[in-house]
């Protein structure tokens, strides 16, 4: 058994070495894991369909990104990785990379250069937050409110969420501390620059929870991105946080009486990883796909379907109109200057260090 394994591994290595330039040695099937819904539809339109057509590859979608980390662990333990390319948020990519479940990517050799010759590492810039992570979009978690239910003065700051006198009614917040704690401190008078310093302390965490406590009775907690648009459609909440693309779909496609509250939106990244432990043919196919799907034009194309900002600097000028609605997409991007007057960037280091502690506290507070 051991001998067979060694033999197989050696053969695999030899094959891998021999096929750097050989196009014929890529598998003809590609399993891509993503989030489902409108987001997967945007990837299908911008990446999957053109790639499948050009290369004669069958692409299978698996909407399992929500449990990607757990499933990849189990698959690697069972030595049976069935996924080729996985779409995850940056925080998950960092975890997978640390655990050796995602392969390292050298941006400059494995990803396409910008049309003007700029190297990929420079084009993506700061967004390459992990060695294994290939950024795809910038999205934001922000608030939407029912224009017909908030009274005469529409909210303009995130602190309206905490002001139940001016805006009575239920609000939808995500059932986790991330973002909520920051917003609570911000509205409790902590300066934006100090938020994470304060949140690192015991008193700071208590202070944030105390602020959340003032609206606890008025909060409906959500766990899937589709919940808030549904709650807004029902009129069950008057405002709620969710991903900006979901709100865009509710406002522009479903014509709900909802408006965006971009204030203090929190940027986060979403992108690809390639699992370790793939056969050489499958890995070659996955890399070929990634090279295609993250080039400048393709990232800009995705913005025709959904209002998430492309991760490459060179893609921004190419963002055009929505493919079926025909409206300009640029003003709906979270990165548009008008929307990005006051923003947060998800603080990966902070949350990597404090997540477990604050999670426990938050859950205990929720259960109280």
């Amino acid at each position: 058994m051991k001998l067979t394994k060694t033999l197989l591994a050696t053969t695999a290595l030899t094959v891998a070495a021999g096929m750097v330039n050989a196009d014929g040695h890529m598998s003809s099937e590609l399993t891509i894991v993503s989030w489902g819904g409108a987001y997967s539809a945007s990837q299908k339109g911008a990446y999957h369909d053109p790639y499948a057509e050009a290369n004669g590859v069958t692409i299978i979608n698996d909407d399992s990104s929500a449990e990607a980390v757990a499933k990849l662990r189990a698959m690697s333990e069972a030595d049976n990785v069935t996924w080729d390319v996985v779409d995850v948020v940056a925080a998950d990519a960092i975890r997978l990379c640390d655990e050796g479940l995602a392969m390292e990517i050298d941006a400059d050799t494995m990803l396409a250069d910008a049309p003007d010759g700029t190297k990929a590492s420079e084009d993506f810039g700061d967004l390459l937050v992990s060695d294994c992570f290939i950024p795809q979009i910038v999205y934001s978690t922000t608030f939407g409110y029912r224009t017909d239910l908030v009274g005469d003065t529409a909210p303009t700051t995130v602190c309206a969420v905490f002001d139940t006198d001016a805006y009575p009614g239920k609000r939808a917040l995500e059932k986790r501390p991330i973002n909520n704690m920051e917003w609570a401190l911000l509205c409790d008078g902590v300066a934006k620059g100090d938020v994470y310093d304060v949140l690192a302390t015991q008193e700071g965490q208590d202070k944030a929870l105390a602020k959340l406590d003032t609206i606890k009775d008025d909060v409906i907690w959500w766990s899937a991105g589709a919940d808030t648009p549904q709650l807004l459609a029902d009129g069950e909440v008057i405002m709620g946080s969710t991903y900006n693309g979901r709100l865009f779909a509710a406002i522009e496609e479903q014509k709900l009486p909802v408006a965006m509250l971009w204030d203090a939106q929190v940027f986060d990244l979403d992108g690809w990883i390639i699992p370790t432990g793939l056969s050489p043919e499958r890995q070659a196919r996955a890399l070929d796909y990634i090279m295609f799907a993250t080039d400048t034009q393709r990232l800009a194309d995705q913005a025709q379907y959904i209002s998430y900002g492309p991760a490459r600097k060179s893609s921004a000028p190419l963002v055009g109109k929505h493919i079926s609605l025909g409206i300009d997409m640029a003003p709906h991007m979270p990165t548009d200057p008008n929307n990005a007057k006051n923003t947060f960037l998800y603080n990966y280091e902070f949350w990597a260090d404090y997540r477990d502690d604050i999670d426990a506290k938050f859950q205990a507070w929720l259960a109280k």
Partner: protein
Amino acid sequence: MAALTPISRKPLSFVLPTAAAAGGGFGLFLGTGNGSGLIGVLLGAAVIAAIAYGFIVVIKNEGLAKWISIVGFAFVGYIYSGVALAITAGLIGMFYHWLIYWLYEGRYRAKLLPYLTPGQVAWHYGFRCIAGVIFIFLITPILVIIPLSFNAQDFFTYTPGMLRLDPDAYSLKHYQDFFTNNEWQRSMKNSLIIAPFATIISVSLGTLAAVGLSQSHMPFKGTIMAILISPMIVPLIISATGMFFFYSDLGNFMENTLGMSKNFAGYIKVILAHAVLGIPFVIITVTATLVGFDQSLTRAAANMGAGPLTTFFRIQMPLILPGVISGGLFAFITSFDEVVVVLFVGSAGQKTLPWQMFTGLREQISPTILAVATILVVVSICLLTVVELLRRRSERLRGMSPA
């Protein structure tokens, strides 16, 4: 049925409180929907009692009261929200008119035996009310999704347009999405591949096991039965975790040593896993049919020179067929509805309908799920009707009257 008991008019002191109680029950629904259940109950009771008093004391004409009641309720409904509610309210008006005169004229007593005490009469109708309430409790969650699947919007919400019965608020687009969307069609196809094969395996193995277990000389019957039934009893998530590791190894063996394609091996894994889940249902239903099977028939067949195989297919099988088929239908539905095991054992190439619904529900609340659910409800009702008809047939064959 002819009247069993002569009827007589009842005093107001009985009619008014009873009608008021019925009004209060309806008021509870409306009141809860509009903020306060208690106010709803009180208002409903007062309104119906007042109407009853008006009908009996002031109008005194049943035919006239009927039209006043229907038109009056419909008018209030129309003012409140339009044509749809007017029709519903008219029907409610008809019901309360019927109820009031039913109580007042003592008609409720007509078809009951004359010697029943008032307590027994009350229980007779009370029992039916309780049964009706339980029925509503069981069926409403299923019925409520059916109109929603025709929603023109992409949300699980009864829009104001839908409540007004506005044709523009309804559409078949979610059904269209189901029949044209690749992902849904692929998962439909997968379900239709996996469920029949899993059923065939479950039925063959389950029937064999049941026939074997029904033999009188079989040792350790109870233990073997318990082990075979265990997939039905062990929490699914635990079976699924175990199956994940077992079938991963099996899958690697099939792909690497036998050289099967990844997709084909995937189907085999899921089909086998679902067959395991279906076998207990077949064993239970077939064992139950075998209880009524007369073993002297097999001895008679053997006496006349038939081998065991001939005996099984010509004598035993036709008689236990209803049990086999209903077991097979249960196995089919188990595989068709199953989401946990396939999530663990299958890969995206084997995505079944319930899996697609599960991810769709979490990531995007799309009414396409409701359209699919409606289709599945209809299919399930058809399958269960078949099971029930078979059960009655088998009881008839055994000389029992259908219960």
